[in-house]
């Protein structure tokens, strides 16, 4: 097969094919539309079934929680935050890669993003949906979350806006909304494609409704592109702010191990790190199942792995800086919090985190590893585990032994902690499985625009 298609021939790396195999515009439409139009393979049904089974475990866990109360979890003083908050931060973090890939890389003119941005954005939405469950159920009084909304109520009370938890409510829900809008705007031209290709009336109406009457008019494209650029420009600081706000939940406190000024950028780097790992995990599978190896090719994995290496290094830097300042600051409690992390009862969690987040990504210094599906897959799983443990370390080890030694305690999760967390994966995979079946998982219009034949070289005046 000829690997000879380029957007721009780079003089250093030679011919770097964003999309391999010289496809025509129509070929792209065909390949991308295929999973949406074919009868899905048996494997798809099996995977969906398994995911839905896990989702029902989430339903059962939440039902039992509402019936019985938060006592079914391992949360107890002093570790009152425990798994629900760990899971919340974990999922919000995963939800950062989508916006990074669609917005930040868009602003930096990284054309390779076009092959993966759609799926990454969808992943963002589903991860944010999973994340939102946890603060919702964590309060243990599911009939009261409306207290967090700034709406006039019978008590004449208003939300307490000095609380970082309120910032979270706004940041995460606005992030979810803006990501949805960004994703939907990106989908409009492709929905029009699906509409124009549809063979049944129902499909035509459904896709046509959401395509808003798009007809590829360049006067529309002009505003569309500007709006997309603006959304990217807004989503970029938004994505930074969201995980910064999540980090504020911890950092505005006075708790040793939580209160440190590097938290905002460090959380953002960690979020992108984990999100990219999840994108790799999903894309390794999807490209194989849906035969898109030429669209989502080694070049994309190479670049993503480099970004993982970059963000992993930043995370490693933040770990060391925290340790250095914990010593340098000379605060006994702070220093204890950190020695206790590395040498205390939760040292196993700390060193799991270090191994997964700092050691694992080092393999991506080698190009072989960056382009080997097996290594990528395994490393990305390790990083996902490591990033979950990072939040576990921050939440649990800081709480389990703070200022008052008489209330120190060890934390043990219960069956229902595991069940709820596993169930959230079920929800995530269910949504993603449905997405790849019903919507084009690659941004067709954008991929077409980076094909070499899309460029006009001799422009009229």
């Amino acid at each position: 097969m000829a690997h000879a298609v380029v957007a721009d021939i780079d003089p250093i790396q030679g011919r770097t094919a964003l999309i391999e195999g010289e496809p025509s515009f129509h070929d792209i439409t065909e390949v991308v539309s295929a999973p949406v139009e074919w009868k899905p393979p048996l494997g798809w049904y099996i995977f969906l079934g398994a995911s839905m089974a896990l989702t029902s475990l989430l339903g059962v866990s939440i039902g039992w929680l509402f019936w019985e109360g938060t006592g079914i979890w391992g949360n107890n003083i002093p570790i009152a935050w425990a798994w629900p908050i760990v899971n919340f931060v974990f999922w919000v973090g995963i939800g950062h890669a989508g916006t990074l890939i669609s917005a930040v890389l868009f602003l930096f003119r990284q054309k390779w993003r076009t092959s993966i941005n759609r799926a990454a954005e969808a992943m963002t939405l589903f991860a944010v949906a999973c994340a939102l469950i946890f603060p919702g159920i964590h309060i243990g009084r599911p009939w009261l979350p409306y207290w967090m909304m700034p709406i006039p109520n019978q008590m004449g009370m208003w939300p307490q806006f000095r609380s970082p938890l309120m910032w979270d409510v706004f940041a995460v829900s606005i992030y979810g909304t803006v990501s949805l809008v960004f994703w939907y705007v990106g989908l409009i031209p492709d929905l029009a494609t699906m509409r124009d290709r549809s063979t049944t009336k129902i499909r035509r109406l459904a896709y046509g409704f959401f395509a808003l009457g798009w007809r590829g008019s360049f006067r529309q494209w002009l505003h569309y592109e500007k709006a997309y650029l603006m959304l990217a420009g807004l989503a970029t600081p938004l994505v930074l702010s969201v995980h910064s706000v999540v980090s504020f939940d911890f950092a505005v406190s006075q708790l040793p191990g939580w209160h440190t000024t590097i938290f905002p950028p460090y959380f953002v780097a960690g979020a992108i790190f984990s999100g990219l790992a999840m994108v790799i995990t999903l894309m390794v599978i999807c490209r194989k199942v849906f035969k898109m190896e030429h669209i989502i090719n080694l070049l994309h994995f190479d670049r993503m792995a480099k970004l993982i290496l970059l963000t992993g290094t930043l995370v490693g830097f933040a770990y060391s800086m925290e340790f250095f300042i914990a010593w340098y600051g000379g605060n006994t409690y702070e220093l204890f919090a950190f020695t206790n992390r590395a040498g205390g009862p939760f040292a196993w969690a700390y060193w799991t985190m270090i191994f997964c987040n700092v050691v694992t990504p080092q393999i991506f210094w080698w190009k072989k590893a960056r382009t080997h599906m097996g290594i990528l897959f395994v490393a990305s799983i390790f990083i996902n585990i490591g990033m979950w443990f990072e939040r576990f370390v921050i939440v649990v080890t800081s709480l389990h032994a703070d200022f008052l030694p008489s209330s120190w305690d060890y934390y043990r999760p219960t069956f229902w902690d595991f069940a709820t967390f596993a169930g959230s994966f079920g929800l995530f995979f269910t949504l993603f499985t449905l997405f790849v079946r019903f919507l084009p998982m690659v941004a067709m219009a954008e991929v077409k625009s980076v094909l070499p034949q899309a460029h006009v070289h001799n422009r009229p005046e």
Partner: protein
Amino acid sequence: MEHHVTLDSQQITLPTSGLWPKLPAVGGVIGVVGLGLAFLLQGEDPQRLAFSYLTGFMFWVTIALGGLFFVILHYLARSGWSVVVRRLAEKVAATLPLFAILFLPIPLLFMHDLFHWSDAAAVAHDPLLQHKAPYLNIAFFNLRAVIYFAVWIGLMIYFNRASQKQDASADFGITARLNKRSAPCMILFGLTLNFAAVDWMMTLDPHWFSTIFGVYTFAGCVIAIFATLILMSLRLQRRGVLEGVVTGEHYHDMGKMLFGFVVFWAYIGFSQFMLIWYANIPEETIWFDHRWHNGWQPVSILLAVGHFAIPFFWLISQPAKRSRFAMTAGALWLLFMHYVDIYWLVMPTPVPSGDHHAMVAQAFQPAATDIACWLGIGGLFVAYLGHLLGQGSLVPKADPRLAESLTFESV
């Protein structure tokens, strides 16, 4: 795409008329006079001179460090558009050896005036300083400074030599090699910059600490270098140099980077402030307290408004980034704000005062030595930079991505 580009030598060498060729002489005179004046003006207050000197030094060295960052980032990102201004950044970074010399007065003359922790008597009464002594001692401080400058100058020589070699040999392999090596170089740069910021500015108040301090300084460096690059290329174009090489597209992109890092600076600065304000732990809050009293309140407000709000709205529109006037004004203003930022970081430091040598933060009282040191160090920097600019081409004329950069269109 066409790889071989020929540029007129007139387009890419320093103009022979106007102020440019006279920079070494003019800058040198200003530098010597400035530093001389600073020593004459110190009068009764040698301590003030030390702080003035450190402020001036930090302002100019952060520009040079920004230049080094720009060069490494250029290779790390395999960037195309920035080729046309990379040589200017290389020249700015090439002034680092000068700063290694200009650093010398700090350990030799000003150590005890600046750094309270270097005073053995103070350490003897302060358990916190005793705890920090393994890090905060004069020998290790000096050793670290040697390491920082060795790393920076080493990196600078490594990148600049290769880049200049390519001018002659047109060897594309050089770019490929630098692309590869830039990642570990960036790690070295990041670590040294972070600890240099800690050593030279954060330890002025040895009780205070903030994990984000290095990142904050880094944001300032990047703003400074983009403002400097914009000004340099705009001024050179006044003389017809770089005309048709650096275009509106490049200004647009540099403007975007400048805008982006203004926002990044605000983000880091606000995060640091808000977290400390909110937790309100005395050992941390005191640092902001010093910057809110004794005349510092207007400076703090000026910093928030002038370093963020004004440039944010000034640079936000697309036409502004392509307008020569708007970019000149914006870049000059941001360099001024960068000075205010450094001043605000360095000056309100507690120093022993009164009969009992109690530690009292310095009030906001601009002194003649501030300006003299700024001019003196700046004059020498400009003189050396002018000398370096006169050597060879101002554009990496055989860079494989030069053609891409010349035809670049910013969207």
